[in-house]
């Protein structure tokens, strides 16, 4: 029996286990392209990346490449970057400004709205029988923005963006937009990791790994250590490297049922997970939390929502990280190849010195040379590689931390998305995989929403 015939067995909520074959199986990857990436709303870019008429940015939607283009009327279109004639890419730049998109194969020329406006030999060779009004660059099925963030879907049946994001997806974006008027910092970091995209997504919820994976970054003092609100350390008896040196952890830990962490889970697989504002504080002076107490924010966001400093994932791969206002896409290129794209945003009204500090924080935390993220890639690459082994692939992936201890609170006042108060956990990851199975199983959007409704316990 192949993996795709056995989807129900791939993720177990009861055992907190995931079948490792989903991280390298080519059939699974093909199914993901069809059932997730050809269907879901996907983040494309920010409006400030394409402010002027003709400005464009090429964004991935699964294996499709779309040109997100500012129109003459100020609107935005997302056009498949493939000529209607023979399929050649009509634009080979990653970003820029265009008056037209001319295919370099036979010269078919499209205006910035995708309309076919020029065909060499239209009269002589096509005898004016080519209906240029019907042939153009195809648009995505739906495009919409949420406060400057541009999303699109290939599925005409998909619910409106607002509904797809739901409270949790919108909340993730609010952690950036509620701070003030935001714009892109020019330069999208793009790099390739030989790993499955799900490892890179799973990791964004993982608040267990920083003290180990990123130990060296904390030891330099350039990256603030995890908060030490109890003075307790994780017990590291017998946790020692190959020379027998026990790890000395730089930060504290809150165990038991104490709630230093908040997890929000929601329909379609969206989730937010991470420490509370009280636990993480201002991240060594780097994070300004004052916006959370502004009257309009108090009005718009629920009390639990305002307390989270967690990482949000808009399913499938749009990670929003609040400290430096960044969005990271984990773009699947193959079962064992993932591109990471980092978009960085900044408040327009920041004074130059604060602006420089914020940009420095982004560059030196994440990205391929980031003091933190340098260490991540090899963990995911090696985790992916080991799933190829006939024997290794039979070892289940474990997501059992605090399993069945996550009581999901469904807020009667409807102010906050369903949430769990807890210590460090693996609920966000498990929720992602549970939803992932449901996407792969297909069905109508109503069925998908129903099957990904948060349970009472995780």
């Amino acid at each position, binding site marked *: 029996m192949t993996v795709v015939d056995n989807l129900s067995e791939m993720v177990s909520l009861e055992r907190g286990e995931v079948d490792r074959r989903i991280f390298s199986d080519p059939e699974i990857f093909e199914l993901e392209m069809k059932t997730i990436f050809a269907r879901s709303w996907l983040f494309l870019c920010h409006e400030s990346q394409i402010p002027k008429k003709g400005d464009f940015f090429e964004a991935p939607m699964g294996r499709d490449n779309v040109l997100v283009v500012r129109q003459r009327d100020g609107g935005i279109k997302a056009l498949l970057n493939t000529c209607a004639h023979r399929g050649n890419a009509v634009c080979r730049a990653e970003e820029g400004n265009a008056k037209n998109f001319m295919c370099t194969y036979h010269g078919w020329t499209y205006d910035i709205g995708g309309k076919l406006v020029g065909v060499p030999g239209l009269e002589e060779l096509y005898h004016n029988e080519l209906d240029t009004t019907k042939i153009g660059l195809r648009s995505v099925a739906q495009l919409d923005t949420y406060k400057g963030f541009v999303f699109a879907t290939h599925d005409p049946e998909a619910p409106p963006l607002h509904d797809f994001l739901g409270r949790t997806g919108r909340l993730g974006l609010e952690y950036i937009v509620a701070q003030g008027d935001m714009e892109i910092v*020019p*330069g999208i970091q793009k*790099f390739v990791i030989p790993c499955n995209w799900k490892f890179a997504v799973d990791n964004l919820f993982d608040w267990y790994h920083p003290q180990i994976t990123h*130990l060296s970054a904390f030891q*330099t003092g350039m990256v603030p250590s995890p908060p030490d609100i109890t003075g307790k350390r994780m017990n590291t008896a017998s946790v020692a490297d190959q020379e027998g040196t026990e790890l000395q952890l730089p930060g504290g830990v809150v165990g038991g049922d104490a709630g230093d962490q908040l997890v929000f889970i929601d329909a379609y697989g969206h989730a937010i997970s991470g420490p509370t504002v009280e636990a993480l504080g201002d991240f060594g002076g780097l994070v300004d939390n004052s916006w959370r107490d502004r009257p309009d924010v108090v009005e718009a966001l629920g009390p639990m929502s305002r307390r989270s400093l967690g990482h949000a994932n808009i399913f499938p791969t749009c990670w929003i990280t609040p400290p430096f206002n960044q969005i990271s896409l984990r773009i699947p290129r193959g079962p064992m190849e993932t591109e990471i794209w980092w978009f960085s945003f900044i408040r327009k009204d920041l004074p130059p010195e604060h602006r420089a500090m914020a940009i420095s924080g982004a*560059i030196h935390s994440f990205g391929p040379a980031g003091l933190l993220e340098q*260490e991540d890639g090899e963990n995911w690459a090696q985790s992916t590689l080991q799933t190829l082994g006939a024997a290794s692939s039979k070892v289940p992936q474990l997501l059992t931390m605090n399993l069945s201890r996550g009581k999901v609170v469904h807020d009667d006042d409807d102010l906050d998305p369903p949430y769990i108060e807890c210590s460090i956990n693996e609920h966000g990851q498990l929720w992602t995989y549970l939803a992932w199975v449901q996407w792969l199983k297909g069905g109508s959007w109503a069925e998908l929403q129903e099957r990904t409704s948060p349970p009472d316990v995780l």
Partner: protein
Amino acid sequence: MTAIEENTRVGGDLLADALRQFEVERFLTNEAALLDAHRYADWVQLFSDDTHYFMPIRRTRLRKQVSQEFTKPGEMAFFDDNKDILLARVAKLATGAAWAEDPPSRTRHVITNVRVVEDDGQELEVHSNFILYRTRLKSEETTWIGSRQDLLRRHEGSFLIARRHILLEQTVLLSQNLSNFF
């Protein structure tokens, strides 16, 4: 005078140029040897306290807009380091817990096409090409090729690197990280 004519001149100036070229190349090759020997603490001492170690992001742009292919300081970058951050990177590698470099990468820096572009007597604008070849673990292999635009400041009979801009011949970075120095 064309660049080729300048290089074919004979006389005292050429000898001075040759000596300066020798000094610069000796400095750059010794610097590269420190990196390949993992002697990062010695390497970072070659940078001035006011140094700027910068690798911009490069983007595929149309020929007419190619002047905008690199990001500038103040925008996003891969490296945008002052001396403190360079020192922190070196300290990080020395912690024994920098897993991305443990086991350490095997690196080889090939520095070539060294050109002194400007020299005001105190500071030299030096451009060079590099190949940085890296292997890791059993079979991971990365090659970075690019150019460097250095400002070398004369200091105690040698130089300090007062600025290094690293321009990679890649847009999407074809490696899982940048845990090595250029």
